[in-house]
């Protein structure tokens, strides 16, 4: 029974995508939404059934299905094979349930758009590819899903392709993730060459048994890390995600917040045994995660565009996950991934509802006082914002962030044999990040919903959009109770499920660690209230365009740096090629000869004049001769090729 259901979960959205693409807009818009939502809903139901089957089974044996053998050589073989264990179970539940709610929301949000079939086709294809990514038990099969989600992301960012800015954003996202994909492919090839298979089980066994040399492990881990960093928009690849907000809002919610960008986190969690063996990669990961979370939180603090605030916030939260992964507690990263999927999807969907009702205005400084006109939306945004900030006890975000913070405190990151980075430093930065998170999201909340009414909101939010918002609000408030720190109540359902043998918790933690983690968001909330919340608020607009603010707002100048270091030289090479420099040089030489000749003729220097005249004639005749060779007739070109071949053969044979 489960062996039959597992492929069906991928097949359902995939077949819907094929039908939607082939129908090419001939289907009525109502049926398009129904088909897409229904197929993802079917997947969600199947994943719930599978979850019940897997968790109720007495032995914690993962469900394995091998569909077919993809390739087979004496030294290497790859299968299309799926495997459902607790780790992928969490992922498919997040992908299908959140995906279903977002599809339901998009039915109303995208109604009336002429490209609705294309939109839903790409969305369902994305769900199918993401499910392949999280279910496959072979890294090569995982790579299919990895590339598939990248493709769908590209298609959906450039969905409104008539605006050049949107297609530019789509291309940028594609190029930057492609750098990571190339690195990841290198890692996979290295693994395949050293171990001879990309089967995840075999790989982890080989790593545990020490069959791979430490150099190969470190190299592979670093290559895969680069791939994961690019997919998850961490430093130095973070520049594509804010621009990716050009796509429709349901896309931003599903792909660029809840699921696709967490693929990197999933990959590292899936291969955590390999990464644990490579301490260098772990340290790099933790440091990059910490830097990213701090930098992205600062950027989010000065944005004026509602969706860009959420995009930077996504990067920042992914930084937390990478910090947890670098510390080695992949369970905490996965827990934060789940709660982040809830509250960030909620924030994006709410933002979409707000933007639609204020006539597609995205600048938060032109909104204000929306609390009176849309109290329901304000409620769900508040739920999402509190979960993102991690307000203590009542939100899901608090529990997941707390799990990460408490693990980081005890960690130690060796840099060299004598020197090592203490986890306390990273812990402190992460707490500062939590404060900033709360500050920027409540800044956004107060500016949008409080203060004087600046822009009229029209219409009302349809029921089909309100239902998903309510469901996800519920999840982001109560989704965290599956895992509670020991200081409050020893509930460890989530980590128990992922790792039945036991998750190491620090029971001897001083209680003030927990209080510090809980206080940071509250302090942020109060500061945000002081600065932006009161009616006579201290700061309404962005304070003076100082250099630091401008730098932070544009993402720390990474775009400009990449423009100078990478894009400009490439453009220059392209320009060289297009203007045919060699041709220019020869024609320059010809005109120089002509001018010299004119100069000489003017001075009537007998013989020289004659020589230069002959040069002109010879140049012209040579030109005519060469031009005659380029007569555009294919048969002549073929004849030249044959002549050259004959001469080369003759010289080779006769010499």
């Amino acid at each position, binding site marked *: 029974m489960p062996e039959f259901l597992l492929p069906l979960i991928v097949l359902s959205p995939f077949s819907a995508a094929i039908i939607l693409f082939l129908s090419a807009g001939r289907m009525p818009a109502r049926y398009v939404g129904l088909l897409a939502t229904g197929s993802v809903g079917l997947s969600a139901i199947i994943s719930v059934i599978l979850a019940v089957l897997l968790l109720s089974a007495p032995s914690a044996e993962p469900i394995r299905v091998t569909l077919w053998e993809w390739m087979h050589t004496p030294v290497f073989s790859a299968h299309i094979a799926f495997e459902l264990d607790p780790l992928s179970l969490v992922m498919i539940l997040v992908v299908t349930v959140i995906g279903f709610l977002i599809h339901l929301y998009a039915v109303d949000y995208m109604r009336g758009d002429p490209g609705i079939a294309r939109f839903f086709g790409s969305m369902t294809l994305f769900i199918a590819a993401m499910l392949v990514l999280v279910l496959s038990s072979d890294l090569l099969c995982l790579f299919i899903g990895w590339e598939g989600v990248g493709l769908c992301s590209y298609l959906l960012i450039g969905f409104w392709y008539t605006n050049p800015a949107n297609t530019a954003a789509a291309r940028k996202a594609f190029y930057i993730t492609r750098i990571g994909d190339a690195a990841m492919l290198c890692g996979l090839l290295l693994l395949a060459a050293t171990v001879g298979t990309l089967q995840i089980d075999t790989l982890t066994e080989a790593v545990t048994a020490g069959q791979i040399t430490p150099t190969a492990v470190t190299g592979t881990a670093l290559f895969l890390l680069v791939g994961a960093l690019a997919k998850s928009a961490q430093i130095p690849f973070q520049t594509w995600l804010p621009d990716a907000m050009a796509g429709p809002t349901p896309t931003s919610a599903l792909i660029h917040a809840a699921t696709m960008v967490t693929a990197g986190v999933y990959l590292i969690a899936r291969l955590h045994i390999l990464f644990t063996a490579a301490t260098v990669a772990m340290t790099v990961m933790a440091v990059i995660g910490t830097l990213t979370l701090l930098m992205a939180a600062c950027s989010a603090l000065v944005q004026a565009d509602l969706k860009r605030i959420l995009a930077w916030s996504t990067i920042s939260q992914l930084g937390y996950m990478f910090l947890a992964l670098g510390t080695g507690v992949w369970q905490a990263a996965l827990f934060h991934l789940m709660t982040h999927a809830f509250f960030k999807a909620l924030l994006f969907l709410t933002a979409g509802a707000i933007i639609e009702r204020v006539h597609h205005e995205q600048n938060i400084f032109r909104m204000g006082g929306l609390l009176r006109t849309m109290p329901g939306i304000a409620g769900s945004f508040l739920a999402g914002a509190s979960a993102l900030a991690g307000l203590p006890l009542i939100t899901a975000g608090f529990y997941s962030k707390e799990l990460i913070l408490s693990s980081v405190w005890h960690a130690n990151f060796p840099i060299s044999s004598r020197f090592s980075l203490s986890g306390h430093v990273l812990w402190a930065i992460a707490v500062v990040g939590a404060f900033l998170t709360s500050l920027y999201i409540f800044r956004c909340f107060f500016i949008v919903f409080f203060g004087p009414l600046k822009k009229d909101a029209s219409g009302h939010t349809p029921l089909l959009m309100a239902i998903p918002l309510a469901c996800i609000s519920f999840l982001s408030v109560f989704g965290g109770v599956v895992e509670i720190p020991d200081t409050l109540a020893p509930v460890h359902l989530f980590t128990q499920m992922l790792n039945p043998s036991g998750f190491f918790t620090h029971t001897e933690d001083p209680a003030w660690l927990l209080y510090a983690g809980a206080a940071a968001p509250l302090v942020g909330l109060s500061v945000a209230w002081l600065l932006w919340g009161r009616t006579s608020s201290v700061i309404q607009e962005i304070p003076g365009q100082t250099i630091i603010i401008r730098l932070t707002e544009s993402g720390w100048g990474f775009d400009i740096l990449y423009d100078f270091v990478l894009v400009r030289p490439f453009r220059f090479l392209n320009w060289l090629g297009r203007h045919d420099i060699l041709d220019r040089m020869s024609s320059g030489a010809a005109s120089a000869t002509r001018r010299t000749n004119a100069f000489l003729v003017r001075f009537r220097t007998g013989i020289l004049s004659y020589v230069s005249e002959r040069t002109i004639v010879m140049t012209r005749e040579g030109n005519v001769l060469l031009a005659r060779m380029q007569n555009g*007739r*294919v*048969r002549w070109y073929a004849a030249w090729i044959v002549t050259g071949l004959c001469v080369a053969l003759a010289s080779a044979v006769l010499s």
Partner: protein
Amino acid sequence: MPVFSFNDALLVAVLLFATGLTGVLVRRNLLFMLMSLDIMLNAAALVFVAAGARWHDASGQVMFLMILALAATETAVGLAIILRLHARGRPSLDADTGNLLRG
């Protein structure tokens, strides 16, 4: 016992190839140029078959089948190009009229 020796086969192949080459170079009709190309391909295929027979190796015949498929594909693409040209209002089979790239 092969009827033809390897050298005979090579000679025939060279003759075939030369015929095809001459056809490509001399004929202006696109259809005949395509046919001549096929003759050249067949000459190459003949060498493969002959070499396969000479060294008792079946891969020569495998390569022949691949060349056969290649020739079919190439002819199909060539004929499609001619049809497209015709459909775009250029009803000429003269290869020399398509010389827009002349210097």
